């Protein structure tokens, strides 16, 4: 099999990898904020549940979580899980990354000096205005490096979807490598992840730069 053929065979997997990547970000970036705010809820029960969710997600391997999301419904409720593979992957990734993003957001929110809240309060801003106009923009600037790290990890973590036999780039690479007894597919996959992360860093640096006008 020529390298070109391998590339063509793997290109479909690359698209699928991108699919997991973007859907995870689309879900986890906003959901993380919801989780971070719930973690600061007035209600002990809410804080408790969110706290357990975060520590379970961070304390167990993502691979295991994916297996649980996929097979759980069958073993727990005897449900038919055909067609559930892709949703299970996305649910697993989104809930996993939302927990990590939530912790980053929370750290960012807590790092804003209390004087910013007090100045806003005295000026008469509502709680929502204070958060959206004064606090959040500063939080975003501060957490950018941590978010970049997390996104880079996500690019590599997408390969874990192979656990559920999903045909993303890494699964396909493994199959071709086995059938052709060649190491080349792994080299291609490696270059693919590397280039993807290079792009991530490039884009994130641009975003960080766009917020460089203040300190």
């Amino acid at each position, binding site marked *: 099999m020529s390298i070109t053929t391998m590339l063509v065979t793997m290109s479909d997997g690359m698209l699928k990898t991108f699919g997991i990547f973007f859907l995870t970000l689309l879900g986890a970036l906003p959901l993380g904020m919801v989780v971070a705010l719930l973690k600061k809820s007035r209600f002990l029960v809410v804080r408790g549940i969110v706290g357990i969710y975060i520590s379970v997600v961070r304390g167990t391997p993502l691979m295991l979580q994916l297996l649980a999301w996929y097979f759980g419904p069958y073993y727990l409720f005897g449900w038919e899980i055909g067609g559930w593979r892709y949703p299970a992957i996305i649910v697993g990734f989104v809930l996993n990354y939302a927990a990590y993003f939530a912790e980053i957001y929370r750290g960012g929110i807590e790092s804003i000096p209390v004087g910013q809240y007090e100045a806003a309060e005295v000026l008469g801003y509502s709680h929502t205005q204070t958060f959206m106009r*004064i606090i959040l923009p500063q939080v975003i600037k501060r957490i950018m490096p941590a978010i970049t790290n997390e996104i880079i990890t996500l690019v590599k973590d997408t390969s874990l979807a192979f656990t559920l036999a999903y045909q993303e780039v890494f699964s396909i690479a493994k199959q071709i490598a086995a059938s052709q007894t060649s190491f080349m597919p792994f080299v291609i996959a490696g270059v693919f992840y590397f280039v993807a992360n290079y792009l991530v860093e490039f884009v994130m640096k641009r975003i960080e730069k766009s917020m460089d006008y203040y300190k």
Partner: protein
Amino acid sequence: MILEMNNIQKQFDGLEVLKDISFGVDSGEVVSIIGPSGSGKSTLLRCATFLETIDGGEIKYMGKAAAHTNAQGKAEYVTAKELRQFRSYYGLVFQQFNLFPHYSILKNLIDAPIRVQKRSREEAMDTAMDLLRKMGIDSKADAYPFQLSGGQQQRVAIARALAMKPEILFFDEPTSALDPELTGEVLKVIKQLAEEKMTMVVVTHEMAFAKAVSNRVIFMDGGVIVEQGDPHDVFDNPQEERTKRFLSVFDR
């Protein structure tokens, strides 16, 4: 009376920080509050600006009660919505400036008037530029707070408070975070406001300034007002032993 605080009581987990404090501020008055560290000066300002809730007593702005002691002996505030109305009566200048770092100087001055007071952009801009000119920092309108010296930042903070057109302005040690050579420019601005009959309450350690600018000096110690009166009386002829002792430290 612009502000009346009657029988104010405030505790921090059992520690009585304000013990039955009463004082009022008339329109056009400049009141200085002095006193040793921990005497409750900041707490008093924070209670007046609703950053802390009082345990007992009464807070009135423009003759209207924002908080009072109810039949059960507990302080009771008006609704959150009504409190927002009260917030438009006063401004507060912090020791640490607390400018919004992500907003330009101009935006720091116009954002709240537009978003909170729903004033027109043009009007807010006009007011802001006038204030910046008055503070001598109109050339910095498009700069960001981090590009300004401490003295300039504090003058912006004063302008930001004034942009809301408050009836009364509170200052909590406005020059304490500044290098000594920068305090003058901030004190000058406050002095200028005093000459324009802006109603102000200034917590300060600058005794010469308090003496020169204020109509009345309040000396606090241990959560009570020990002595108050005309600055010349309080500074040159204090009646209370505690006041004498406190002032003697500054007498060199």
